[in-house]
């Protein structure tokens, strides 16, 4: 910088050398959200995520034990594709979720994939990290070193509002269970 006092030159040089690079998948993620018509203000809130994760785990385990999995009306069978987040704890936001639900709102298939070609959506070259068919089952997802992470909030069910959360349970070997649920539903928290 011109006319900078001599005693500030070193600090000027040091500060000028600092550069950060946003992750490459952020661009397709933002453009994907824009194409889907998502409104601003739905950014992930890390300060909220921790608190929601704990409460979500309690709800999830309760539902698993007592079988409190309720169906909800859904206009038609449809598929929802959401990308890209770090769902498996690998440190890179290159994972997506694919939800296929029937007309009664039951999740027929819930798939987590790695967006290997950075297309921002599920495509032929992507690798599957987890697939769940049919109803929620937490039996296979119990273990001492299991980690539960909640991702909130997004429109995972494709009905418009970004009021859905995704819970992923994983350990060192991979993802063991995944489920979505809806906040603020008239019947309370609704597990899928």
């Amino acid at each position: 910088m011109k006319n900078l006092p001599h005693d500030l030159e070193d600090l000027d040089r040091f500060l000028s050398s600092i550069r950060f690079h946003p992750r490459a998948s952020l661009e397709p993620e933002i453009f994907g959200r824009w194409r889907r018509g998502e409104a601003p203000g739905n950014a992930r809130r890390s300060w909220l995520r921790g608190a929601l994760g704990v409460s979500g785990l309690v709800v999830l385990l309760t539902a698993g034990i007592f079988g409190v999995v309720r169906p909800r009306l859904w206009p038609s069978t449809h598929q929802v594709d959401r990308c890209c987040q770090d769902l498996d704890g690998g440190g890179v936001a290159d994972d997506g979720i694919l939800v296929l639900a029937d007309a009664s709102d039951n999740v027929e298939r819930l798939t987590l994939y790695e967006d290997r070609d950075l297309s921002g959506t599920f495509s032929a070259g992507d690798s599957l990290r987890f697939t769940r068919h049919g109803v929620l089952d937490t039996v296979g997802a119990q273990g001492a070193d299991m980690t539960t992470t909640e991702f909130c909030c997004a429109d995972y069910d494709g009905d418009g509002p970004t009021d859905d959360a995704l819970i992923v349970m994983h350990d060192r070997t991979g993802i063991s269970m995944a489920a979505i649920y809806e906040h603020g539903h008239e019947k309370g928290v609704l597990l899928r």
Partner: protein
Amino acid sequence: MNPEFPKPAIVPQPGESTSAEDVCRFWYTTYSGEVYNYLRFHLPSADTAEDIMAETFLKVFRSAATFDPSRASARVWIFSIARNTLHDFARRARVRRHVSLGALRDLACDAPSPEERLIWEEEVAGVLEAVALLEEGDREMISLRYGSNLSVAMIAEVLAIREPTVRTRLWRALKRLRARLPEDT
């Protein structure tokens, strides 16, 4: 070392052949680096900076039709949205002041060895912690000049103030920052 942000090869011109997405991609390619580094000088977490950047550009894309180049340049317009988004976030959430080393995963580094990379990260973390402790006005000056790599003239345009005022405020901010750093930094 004073790295420049990559510039796009094609500048879309107004006309029937230019789609809204072409223009938005041009804006993203041109200004995302500046905006992201501006946010990173304000925020100690890469995750939070990514969230704010996504929110900023979603607002930019959704408001693209309202952009009036006769009133302000695209850079000034986009930075005004980024600054407002950041201030909204700061109002509703307490921004941590501590910069942990793990939070610098997005830091560019051409160090040849892991040890040198670690030293570089420690130095940057120390300086960014000092930046975080500055008054808001000083932090804004440092973030625009060194985060976004904007010239004094550009900062004057973004903040709608005169260039000599920018220079004076920047020098004062640098002096206050240096006073917060250890002698050997």
